């Protein structure tokens, strides 16, 4: 193992462990709320209203929305974990502990992103287990399911990192989730198929990246999708690469961290 690799692997392990320790220590704020929210979605939209809606794309409404709701919780949690963790590290100036150390910027970005990804996936597991009380899900394509959920968590974890770098106060870390992520998620086919929309809105919906993620994941679980899976996965791979490069670049420049 090279002279630089081993210490950087130890540093990576340290950052990831610290991140996991952080969100598990405050589990009533991080892991419990999405579980409660999703149970409410299952009860109200799935059981109560869903029974009157009938089938969608050949599945009961409950079965149809479960993949979307899992993705919604992954998106929200992977993003919010990194944005709040990295911003508080900046806010408390404990980011200086990392900046004065010889940790590679790549390790810092990957470490924080993995923190967000693990939280996103942990919430996904919780929500999936809860969904078992309401429906009997069969996974259509395990590889696609795991790949898509991992890529989605990565995209939003890195997005959260970039948001945290630019944020100057706590208001700045809630603007993007409130005004960008929530509308994109709700309009991203979580609760409906875009085939229900007029051609104009169908075309417009295709510009929504969340739609591709939700549908790719739905394909993995149910085997149905409004979009082409290959395109969606390619788009996600490119997005991860771009967001990663931007994150590393921002960290090296020291924006908001170095004078």
């Amino acid at each position: 193992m090279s002279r630089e690799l081993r210490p950087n692997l130890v540093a990576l392990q340290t950052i990831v462990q610290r991140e996991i320790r952080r969100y598990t220590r405050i589990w009533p704020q991080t892991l419990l709320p999405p579980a409660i929210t999703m149970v409410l979605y299952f009860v109200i939209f799935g059981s109560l209203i869903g029974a009157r809606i009938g089938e969608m794309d050949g599945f009961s409404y409950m079965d149809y929305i479960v993949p979307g709701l899992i993705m919604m919780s992954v998106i929200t949690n992977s993003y919010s974990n990194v944005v709040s963790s990295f911003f508080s590290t900046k806010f408390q100036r404990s980011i200086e502990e990392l900046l004065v150390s010889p940790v590679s910027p790549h390790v810092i970005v990957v470490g924080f992103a993995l923190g967000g990804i693990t939280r996103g996936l942990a919430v996904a597991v919780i929500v999936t287990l809860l969904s078992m009380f309401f429906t009997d899900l069969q996974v259509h394509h395990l590889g696609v399911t795991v790949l898509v959920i991992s890529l989605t968590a990565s995209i939003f974890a890195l997005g959260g990192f970039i948001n945290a770098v630019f944020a100057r106060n706590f208001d700045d870390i809630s603007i993007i989730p409130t005004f960008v992520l929530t509308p994109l998620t709700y309009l991203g086919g979580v609760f409906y198929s875009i085939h229900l929309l007029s051609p104009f809105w169908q075309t417009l919906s295709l510009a929504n990246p969340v739609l591709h993620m939700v549908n790719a994941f739905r394909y993995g679980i149910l085997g149905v999708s409004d979009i082409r899976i290959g395109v969606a996965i390619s788009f996600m791979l490119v997005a991860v690469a771009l967001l990663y490069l931007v994150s590393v670049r921002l960290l090296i420049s020291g924006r908001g961290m170095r004078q």
Partner: protein
Amino acid sequence: MSTALSIRQLTKTYGNGFQALKGIDLDVAEGDFFALLGPNGAGKSTTIGILSTLVNKSGGTVNVFGHDLDRDPSGLKRCLGVVPQEFNFNQFEKAFDILVTQAGYYGIPAKIAKERAERYLNQLGLWDKRDVSSRMLSGGMKRRLMIARALIHQPRLLILDEPTAGVDIELRRSMWSFLTELNREGITIILTTHYLEEAEQLCRNIGIIDHGQIVKNTSMRELLKQLHVETFLLDLKESQLVAPELGNYPSRLVDHHTLEVQVEKSQGVTELFRLLSAQGIEVLSLRNKTNRLEELFVSLVENNLKVTP
């Protein structure tokens, strides 16, 4: 003896146009205990910020134990431990975890990190507080925690930016002896402080920075030699209504029991006591009016102020 720190023509201009450093040259030898002094806003923290890579320099070179800041920042960082002025650790983490985590950033395996954390927390009197959330620690404990954190990767050069600010006398003295011991073990130390008594007590060499320039870089001994006049306060046994006539010793009464006397180095105090004794004035005690280094520091900075508009 090799050079621990070498700075050449270091400049820093902030985004608002303020030129904090105007071409600093500074060398610190390995094993030295070096004081970097200067008034507020002189450029001390900017210099330390550049060394620790928290401030981007505008120009010049920085070299720590042969590691160039531009070419080998990782190597430089491994040699360097920094205790900043402000508390900059996670306030919600426990003292022990802060040290082990910091060690992890330097690639130190957890087992070794835990052993070192135990050793430094013990040495700095914080072992009992190892499981206490750092925000619950007193100011002095937080300062010691930052020193322990800076030492966890066993740096060769330790930079302390006002480490005893706001620390009580007793604790300050125990920190002095701890730092002296570290220096004796071979760690090069650079100290900035506003307590000039501290610098005089601990440091062998001194650099004075003002308006972004080094105005003095010499040994403490050489610097103190420049002090020609010392001011003493004499506590008198009997009350005096007027200042006694003391020949070549300028004097004044501070109050009825305290006499202030200026003594040139060449004069000594023997003659002074003879004159006082001849007038039947008994002296209970004698003390410096100000710290010797403080007098020099003020005069150097004032002189620099006259030439720097």
